């Protein structure tokens, strides 16, 4: 973690504002946002706060597909969506959308993964290698000939990720990937994503409401509201800020229990406590009433 400072900044955004064409208000308002190589950043906030719009800018969908007024300084691995096309950025930044149904086009898993590399016009051998690599990274070799729609929600999400990874991005952005997963699949997904990040040395930007599932893996949390960044800092600092300022987001219950007892805590050790430790703490709260 001490090497964090020396890491390269790969996303640098200064005074970014954006207004969709024909809209009255800015969706994003003077945003400053940096991401360093290898970080795991979680962006959260109420719906309509501008999270998905930010993801669209980071991948070039804005302004290439969604026109509007975009101002400020933007450097995404030295790309600028105002100058660069989506497909140029797509080979560096991948975006996994919320609903896998709309981003899987082919009738077999392997064909779907090959779709991106085919678009890039790669050699047959290179495509085959990428398909094999992506399948192994997400552990879907057994499902390669299956139709993506026959798979469970969790596996569909993995296919969508594999398909994006076949573009060989350095940064992976995911927009609320656990929304339609059951609890068990969502928990497994959190571990999978962290493992993937470590294995491939990815930088991950995760838009998510379920903070507690990912909390222990995060390097930073960014909280957005009404087009602005409210706070952008280490997870425990952000959580303290949100508790103090009554920001309506899903704060992990563990933190609330500790805070209520007025104890200070060390964010890194939060998950070292066992449920039974929290049970004792919680009973203390009940008895205090």
């Amino acid at each position: 973690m001490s090497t964090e400072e020396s890491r390269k900044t790969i996303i640098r955004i200064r005074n970014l504002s954006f207004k969709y064409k024909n809209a009255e208000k800015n969706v994003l308002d003077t945003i400053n946002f940096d991401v360093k190589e290898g970080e795991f950043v979680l962006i959260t906030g109420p719906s309509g706060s501008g999270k998905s719009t930010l993801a669209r800018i980071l991948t070039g969908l804005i302004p290439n597909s969604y026109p509007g007024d975009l101002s400020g300084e933007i450097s995404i691995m030295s790309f600028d969506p105002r100058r660069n096309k989506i497909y140029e950025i797509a080979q560096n930044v991948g975006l996994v959308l919320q609903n896998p149904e709309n981003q899987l086009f082919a009738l077999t898993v392997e064909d779907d993964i090959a779709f991106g590399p085919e678009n890039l016009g790669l050699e047959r051998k290179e495509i085959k290698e990428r398909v094999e690599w992506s399948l192994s990274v997400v552990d879907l070799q057994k499902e390669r000939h299956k139709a993506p729609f026959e798979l469970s929600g969790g596996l569909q999400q993995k296919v969508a990720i594999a398909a994006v990874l076949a573009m060989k991005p350095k940064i992976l952005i995911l927009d609320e990937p656990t929304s339609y997963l059951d609890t068990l699949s969502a928990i497994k997904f959190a571990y999978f994503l962290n493992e993937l990040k470590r294995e491939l040395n990815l930088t991950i930007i995760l838009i998510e409401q379920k903070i507690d599932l990912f909390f222990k893996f995060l390097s930073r949390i960014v909280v957005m509201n009404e087009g602005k960044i409210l706070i952008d800092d280490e997870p425990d600092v952000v959580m303290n800020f949100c508790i103090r300022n009554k920001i309506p987001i899903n704060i992990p219950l563990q933190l609330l229990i500790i805070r209520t007892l007025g104890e200070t805590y060390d964010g890194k050790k939060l998950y070292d406590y066992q449920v039974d430790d929290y049970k004792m703490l919680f009973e203390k709260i009940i008895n205090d009433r």
Partner: protein
Amino acid sequence: MAMNFVKAYQFSRKETTIHALDPRVKLFVSVGVAIIGIITLDPIEIAFLTVIQIIILALSKSMKLWLRSLKALTFFILLIAVSQYLTTQSLIQAIIFSARFILITSATSWFFYTTSPEDLGRALEQMGVPSDFSLAFTLSMRFIPVIANEFQDVYDAQRVRGLNLEKGNLLERTKAFLPILIPLFVEVIRRTYEISDALELRGYGFKEKRSHWKELKLTTNDYIFLAFFLLTIAIIVLHRLYYPLV
């Protein structure tokens, strides 16, 4: 009813020799048979070709699907028979015309049962159709069932709110469809945006000519299949020479 038509032509993944044939060969044969079906009025030729279609359907393990789709199309078959009978006053004529319809639908249905939309897209693309067209085709095939489900969802939601499509006169009935069609339309537009985003994020449009990781190549089975088809045509031509239609 719309669903019946969708199901009549839905691809179903199976591992048979017919499924594994080159989509271009299948397209050629299926279109070929359909054309003969349109041209011919000879009952023996129609019967002969229909038997061959049934053999292909059996080989592709799609008999059940075909019989079900015939059931769904009964109304149209009867309609053709009745209208032919009324115009020509000939029972034989009526039977021939409905038999032709069955032949044409069976030739096209085994093609769709055994050819995945993307194989078809691949075939079109490698036959020189621009990739935008073949992609549009693949995507529409892929999303037809999705939209059909969406239709069912909206229909169900409005039925819960008391919508009744079978009440009132024609105008009222047509108007009753609006609470289904408007939400469906809104949803389709929303989906279209998301799909187009997803396509662009996967680099679509980067190269004018996409590459193909699986190139279509004719195999021995394809040649055998083609040979049988040519043999069939030869038999028909011979039949024509000996028994010209009066």
